[in-house]
């Protein structure tokens, strides 16, 4: 239990209060987010899980100032998402790696550094460091098509880490990869998280993935998109892959599944 208390006293990084977001569509308003209140502390690994349309991606995009909420407040590092973005508070990893085919791996990782105006020498140094962090040293001169899907996604994580943001926002980053690669990347991501002490927001469809990775699991449900359960994981931060066979793990997975079932309308 001491572990849980330690989590809750960490300084808050992302604070959302009564957040609402309504899209106006030709079929009438769609409540993508309704009264979402959540605090994410520094160094936490928070997973958002729920069926399509539950607002998990929308919430991540609001944090990243890619969407504007229509009600409520949200702060990132104590300021607005817009200001936080300008202060390079977060790196964003999308579902697809989205590497530029005309740039090498190193060139892709360098992209944000060029845009943010780092010096040439610092660009090269940072590229070298983050490629090492994601185990892609020696692949800098390769082009994306020469790498496997998993390696491409690692390169896109390196790109998000290159400018030293404290927060890493990941929108189903491993969703398009097969299970074996996904397991491997999950393990690597945990190691990377332990080494860099980033705050991570992670959107996923997969219950085992959410439970394995997270210190906090946010269960969401659709129509309107809302939070139905927030689970503080009692699992230790050090997690070998076979932790997934322990009773504690299965217990959390069960609670997540229950939360998903409760929030899901079976009328369709």
């Amino acid at each position: 239990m001491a572990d849980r208390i330690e989590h809750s006293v960490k300084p808050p990084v992302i604070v959302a209060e009564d957040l609402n977001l309504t899209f106006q569509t030709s079929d009438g308003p769609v409540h993508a987010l309704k009264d979402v209140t959540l605090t994410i502390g520094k160094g936490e690994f928070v997973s958002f899980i729920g069926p399509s349309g539950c607002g998990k991606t929308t919430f991540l995009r609001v944090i990243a100032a890619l969407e504007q909420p229509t009600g409520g407040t949200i702060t990132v590092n104590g300021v607005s998402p817009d200001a936080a973005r300008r202060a390079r508070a977060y790196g964003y990893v999308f579902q697809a790696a989205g590497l530029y085919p005309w740039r090498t791996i190193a060139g892709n990782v360098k992209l944000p550094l060029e845009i943010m105006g780092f010096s040439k020498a610092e660009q090269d140094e940072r590229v070298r460091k983050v490629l090492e962090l994601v185990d892609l040293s020696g692949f800098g001169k390769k082009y994306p098509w020469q790498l496997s899907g998993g390696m491409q996604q690692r390169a896109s994580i390196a790109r998000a880490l290159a400018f030293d943001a404290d927060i890493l926002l990941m929108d189903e980053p491993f969703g398009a990869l097969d299970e074996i690669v996904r397991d491997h990347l999950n393990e690597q991501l945990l190691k990377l998280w332990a080494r860099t002490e980033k705050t991570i927001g992670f959107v996923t469809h997969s219950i085992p993935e959410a439970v394995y990775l997270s210190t906090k699991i946010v269960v969401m449900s659709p129509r309107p998109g809302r939070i139905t359960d927030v689970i503080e994981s009692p699992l230790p931060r050090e997690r070998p892959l076979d932790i997934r066979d322990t009773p504690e793990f299965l217990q959390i997975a069960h609670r997540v599944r229950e939360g998903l079932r409760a929030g899901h309308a079976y009328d369709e």
Partner: protein
Amino acid sequence: MRRVLPVLVVTAAIVVIWYAASVWMNSTWTLDQAERAGETPTFGQIVADTMAQDRPLLPPPHQVAAELWELTAEKKITSKRSLVYHGWITLQATMLGFAVGAIMGIALAIGIVHSRTMDMSVMPWAIISQTVPIVAIAPMIIVLSNAVGIDGRTVPKTIISAYLSYFPVLVSMVKGLRSPDAMQLDLLRTYSASNAQTFWKLRLPASLPYFFASMKVAVAASLVGAIVGELPTGAIQGLGARMLIGSQFGEPMIMWTALFAAAILAAGLVFLVGLLERLALRLTGQGAP
């Protein structure tokens, strides 16, 4: 070999059809002559005659090839009959028109992609401009440019050539510059990238394949434009002028050789663009492995 064979078969088929058509079309003249002389030629005699007329309705391939060879390789290029000389005149206007058209197309595309107002106001006019037949506008451009005191034909030919070539560039480049998907654009937003950075780092490189596809169409269209610019009001220089002279003076050989010279020129230009494309794609790591 497997790829060469179909190409050869198609080429051979075209040549065969051409020869057959030559015999058929030129035989009218042969039979006419024979009738006046009171002779009845055999089929072999007819075929032999249709292969070697002075003014064939449809010259057979070997005649065109021989004439082409004579007018390019054997004539001095200063000669008024040399196709190298006339080709060079047309090529100059083509290249000028191509340059102007390409720059215009790219500039308009950049404007259209970045400004909704330009998209709404320019695009319809660009489309309308292409529905007007070029042969209707060409004489007007020549007359108007003479009226404002522009000597010679280079300027009006360049305008006509650019008029034809800017459009494919415009359409392709708008598509190319818009080809990055929402995710790619979102990624740059997370870096707080400016519009200019988005353009140089994402939109422009992403449009490269579209750019080269449009360049191939545009360079051929430029050549057509230059030739059309030479057709009206009695030009005496350029491949277009040769075609007109050939048809007006009943000299099919002149017409056909000019036609082939134009086709060969166009093929060469498209091939050149293709080379540049391969080079550019290789330099940017996108060449075939």
